[in-house]
């Protein structure tokens, strides 16, 4: 599982960060940093919540 960020859509609001603080962090310049873009099975639920929570639909999960 890989986290993909559509940088054109992401506005750095950080709703993902609230859902999955171990996976996402908005930087001081407002850009999103993915802390772990290939999370393990234990983080799947948090990653899915983050994808759902994004109001700009900038996040997706890709199965490799």
């Amino acid at each position: 599982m890989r986290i993909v960020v559509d940088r054109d859509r992401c506005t750095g609001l950080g709703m993902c960060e609230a859902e999955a603080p171990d996976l996402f962090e908005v930087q001081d310049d407002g850009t999103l940093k993915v802390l772990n873009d290939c999370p393990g099975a234990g983080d799947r639920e948090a990653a899915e919540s983050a994808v759902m929570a994004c109001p700009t639909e900038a996040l997706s999960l890709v199965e490799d």
Partner: protein
Amino acid sequence: MRAPSRGDVPSANREASVTIDTGFVPATSKFKPDYSPIDVSSKAFWNKTSEERDERFARLRAEDPVSWQRPVEDAVAPDPHDPGYWALVKHADIVKVSRDAKTFISGQGVMFDLLAPMFLEMSQSFLAMDAPRHDHLRRLISSAFTPRRIQRIDEQIQVAAREVVDSFAGAPSGEIEFVSQCAELLPVRLFCDMFGVPGELREQTAKAAADIVSWADPEALAGRSPAEIQLGACEVLHGIAARIIAERRKNPADDLFTNLVQAEVDGERLTNAEIGSFFVLLSVAGTDTTKHTSSLTVKAMTDFPDQRTWLREDYDTRIRTAAEEFVRYASPVMNFRRTAVGEVELGGKKIIPGDKVVLFYPSGNRDSDVFADPDRFDLSRDPNPHLGFGGGGAHFCLGNQLAKGALRALFRELLTRIPDFEAGTPDLLGTNFMRGVKRLPFRFTPER
């Protein structure tokens, strides 16, 4: 009244070049049905109570979910060429339009009422812009509002809430006017702390921000015209901004004004007029909304005592879910507009370029396709995909985490220290924009 000098104001051309490739897209009355018999444009409609308005929106959702409406009655700056607008009242349609910024733009204005062009110039900032300039401006301050950052100032928010409640909880009369003596104080303090508005300018800032949304309230107008009250308030806020800008250029500080004076956007520094407009936007968005939400929430807790009891039983676990319902139930911002620049079908109606669409958030928040028993204040509602912060997309409320943090902190104080409070009948703001409360009687057993 001083107008900003022309050189300070971003020219229409410059904005257009970064927002819409095709230039201004005019409205047309072509291909439109008759105006809907279920009207939401008249002054009489907006003078009704929230409950009566909710009933009419419920009728629209059931009978005419994408309705063509006559232009808003009694506009501040009427446009004789305005043919009307599409009223979007279903949750799904509001979400769809909010998230499709390629078809539905903000750069041709986002207010439902037609307001004075000079007022819009001085107050809308990135709210009425599209990508990429919207994103560039918003990003100057957005990192201060992320969940992690708000979590970091959680203690500061709680201290502020405690001090607000300290100021009245022991009052022997056990009675206050809730809006001015409680609801307004916390968001104003948090906003001013973040922006770096000094103490002596805070009261003026709060008053001007409240004036801006009071343009349709006869009492607030006190004989002035709507444009007069709005432009007057903008002048005050631009004046405050100019003073702080000058100060921060000399002495940078750890606040958002410093971010703005130091920022370069698209290779250029922001002008004083641009920073002033930014400040006007955020002062209204950051203070007025939370004020009305907490006022409407103490009223809801009075009307639904079982919900208050439920929350008090396990506040720390339940408040995060409950705060979402505070916002859904209050729905303080009643509408924003978009303009179509492409052709799209919604609810069987053909929307064409130039058409205005107005998103009625409180209606989406009462849509029974999404919310079971939508008129019930249900603090355990989960999931709660309400539209209180917008329907998603690039304009989703930047301050949502701060607003929820403030509500959590304030209600923690109220429900532990004066838990038997009773709110009386709210005196509502006359407006077609904000579900606002002017005054609210509030009684409680004083703290010893």
